[in-house]
């Protein structure tokens, strides 16, 4: 079977906007959390903490910046940034990447993932306030003028815009797709792109996810469901508490993670450095409830077992598990039950860590960002820590690597979980470069 190797990494996440900065922060066990009020006025919001991409400056997007200017589309900016970074990582520079992709007509693919596109307040102004005349009567002519003026805002709703920009910029002409599988989307996009390569549909793919819901309506959508932590009795960096008995919801995050995937044959032929391997994907459906997993995590069990089967590995081969680990009471206990079902109890099961303790939950991009973090950790020979795990929940009794990264130079395989609303589950098996 064709091995699918990783030859480029790109990332924008609360720990930084390049792989080496992010890797260092992960090794150091740093948190990317801060005040949500840095994003907008939160005086009357219950939620006060977010994990934002730090010091974000879209002007460095270069030739892509004009197309993204003024749309307020942070997620697309993150997506383009991470994809460009991954391509430069894989090929050295833009010109080399462009030449390599041009040499693959119809066989260089894009498989990204994104999520819900909730409106910005500016869209509310343009679509609603500017269209109302006296007595709130609808003024059609005014609406047309307003909507024309706000045309650039609507562009952010077309999530395939990142694929379009990359296709225009680099000449991709193979399969192109945007996954909308909720919080499992990023992981499933990477696994599916790997399958495209294994099936011979393409030789190279840029795969990953991008997301930002850190704006008023985006945050409110989760707050009103009770999914976000409303904790204000501690420092922002201590709010995200996966697997802790005091956990009360997740911290909203944002960012993008992108991988350049190639068939091993293609990568070797061009002398590329192999950074890791995508061994398997498992996807499943809970067939249960829209916003809650079944307590026994049975959907997650199916996904993890399917990923192991595609990777042709046994549970004992997995060195650590990167949990979905949101910090919501229901997710963490169900995921623990699922991991026990697949791997065994504490002492038998491999360590289970949650990167969301440091970077929050990047929603549709989570699985992609966490795949980048996992590959960097494998390279660095560490198991990343679960932060803020001060009073472990007895119901989640597994080895969670609290507070500090653990040395693991012999670790070869990671299983990375991503679960989403609608009961969708995705598990990826990733390997070190020599696996």
């Amino acid at each position: 079977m064709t091995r699918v190797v990783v030859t480029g990494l790109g990332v924008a996440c609360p720990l930084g906007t390049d792989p080496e900065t992010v890797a260092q922060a992960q090794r150091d066990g740093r948190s990317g959390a801060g005040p949500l009020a840095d994003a907008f006025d939160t005086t009357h919001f219950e939620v006060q903490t977010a994990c934002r991409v730090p010091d974000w400056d879209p002007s460095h997007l270069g030739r892509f910046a004009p197309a993204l200017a003024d749309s307020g589309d942070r997620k697309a900016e993150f997506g383009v940034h991470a994809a460009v970074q991954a391509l430069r990582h894989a090929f050295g520079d833009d010109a080399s990447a462009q030449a390599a992709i041009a040499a693959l007509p119809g066989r260089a693919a894009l498989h990204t993932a994104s999520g819900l596109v909730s409106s910005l307040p500016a869209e509310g102004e343009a679509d609603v306030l500017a269209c109302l005349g006296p007595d709130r009567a609808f003024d059609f002519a005014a609406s047309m003028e307003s909507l024309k003026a706000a045309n650039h805002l609507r562009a952010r709703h077309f999530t395939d815009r990142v694929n379009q920009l990359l296709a225009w910029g680099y000449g991709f002409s193979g399969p192109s797709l945007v996954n909308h599988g909720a919080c499992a989307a990023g992981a499933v996009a990477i696994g599916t792109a790997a399958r495209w390569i294994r099936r011979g549909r393409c030789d190279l793919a840029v795969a990953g996810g991008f997301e930002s819901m850190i704006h008023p309506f985006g945050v409110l959508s989760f707050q009103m469901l009770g999914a976000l932590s409303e904790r204000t009795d501690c420092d922002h960096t201590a709010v995200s508490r996966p697997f802790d008995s005091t956990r009360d919801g997740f911290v909203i995050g944002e960012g993008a993670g992108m991988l350049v995937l190639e068939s091993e044959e293609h990568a070797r032929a061009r002398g590329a450095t192999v950074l890791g391997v995508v061994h398997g994907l498992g996807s499943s459906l809970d067939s249960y409830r829209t916003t809650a997993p079944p307590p026994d995590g049975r959907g997650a069990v199916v996904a993890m077992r399917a990923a192991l089967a595609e990777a042709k590995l046994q549970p004992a081969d997995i060195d650590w598990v990167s949990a979905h680990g949101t910090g919501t009471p229901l997710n963490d206990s169900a995921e623990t039950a699922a991991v026990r079902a697949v791997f065994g109890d504490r002492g038998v099961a491999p360590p289970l860590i949650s990167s969301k303790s440091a970077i929050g939950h990047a929603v549709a991009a989570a699985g992609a960002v966490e795949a980048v973090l996992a590959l960097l950790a494998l390279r660095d020979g560490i198991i990343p820590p679960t932060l803020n795990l001060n009073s472990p929940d007895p119901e989640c009794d597994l080895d969670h690597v609290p507070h500090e990264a653990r040395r693991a130079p012999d670790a070869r395989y990671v299983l990375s979980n991503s679960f989403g609303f609608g009961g969708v589950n995705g598990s990826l098996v990733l390997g070190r470069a020599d696996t």
Partner: protein
Amino acid sequence: MSARRIALRGIGVNSPAGAGLAAHEQWWGEGRPSCLGPTGKHAGDPYMAATQSGEVPGWRARNHVPDRKSIKLMFPRVQLGIGAALEAWDADGWTEDDAPEPPERRAMYAACGLTVDEDWTFRDAVHAGAVDGRFDMVRFGQEGQGLLNPLWLVKGLSNNVLAFVARYRTITGPNDNFMAGAVGGFHALDAAVGELEAGRADRALAGTSDSLVTIEDSLAFARDGALAAGLVPSQGAGFALLTPGEPGDFGILAVGTGFHAGRAEAPWQLPPGTSEALDALAQETRGDLVPALRIRGPRLADAGDIDLWTPLGDPGAAASGWMLAAAWLARTVDRVHGPIELAVADPTGELAVVILGTLP
């Protein structure tokens, strides 16, 4: 050519021609008359810019959605998708009690369009949060946020068709949800074929649903000039049931996907050169096969042998689902037995070709 044979066992479809396959067989037999009309439930809404649309006639969600209490959580595109998906799934007489495959070997791949109408859902909250015609975050926090429907995120989930159908038919296996405009349904088909070929599933649904009959779409099309250019927003869904097949079954002969990186003059138009790129992909996909019938997607200069879009309007992402249904009807009603070539392009640049026919 597929490594394993994959058969198309059933179709579910909703369109302005009717709800369900039987209504479409009748419409097809009558020569496919136009089903477009004045907009229905939005007709009196001053926000609705379109004066003509293609709506599914007489649609009653409670007749198609098993769980009536959840209907309030479903946009029309979700209801239409669930109806078509369940019709396809049950087409070969499937019942849970007699199902030969375990739930984890049931797969589903769905495509969807943009979730819209949010700003209009927010109307009252945004208005309450305004000061002197401008959105004010503090005022919104005080006066506006309490007017929002707490379940709006749940209602807007793009994978809702997948989630509800999985629950109704205990589908727990491989799955995915895509957004690829008019092309999405063929990506779903491609993914389902891949799972069946790889032996990871024994039974799979693939299809798409969408509705452009919304206020926000209507205003956007008016702004972009699409309505003036003749675009009639429509709605519907089409899903196919796939299983491993035998020689002689009607099934999937080939699937090809690609991208044409052109720039269109307007968001709803296809980029220049799309037809040529699609023709090249079709040639590559069909190889030596000679199509007996060619069905083309909306907005293409080459209308193919059957025009679905003049009588039914433009259903956005549902287009590829309708094309699967049209191929099924050509086979069952018109007795077309040679290969049927389906080719579709989206303004975003995405391309796909599916060749259906008798499995060798």
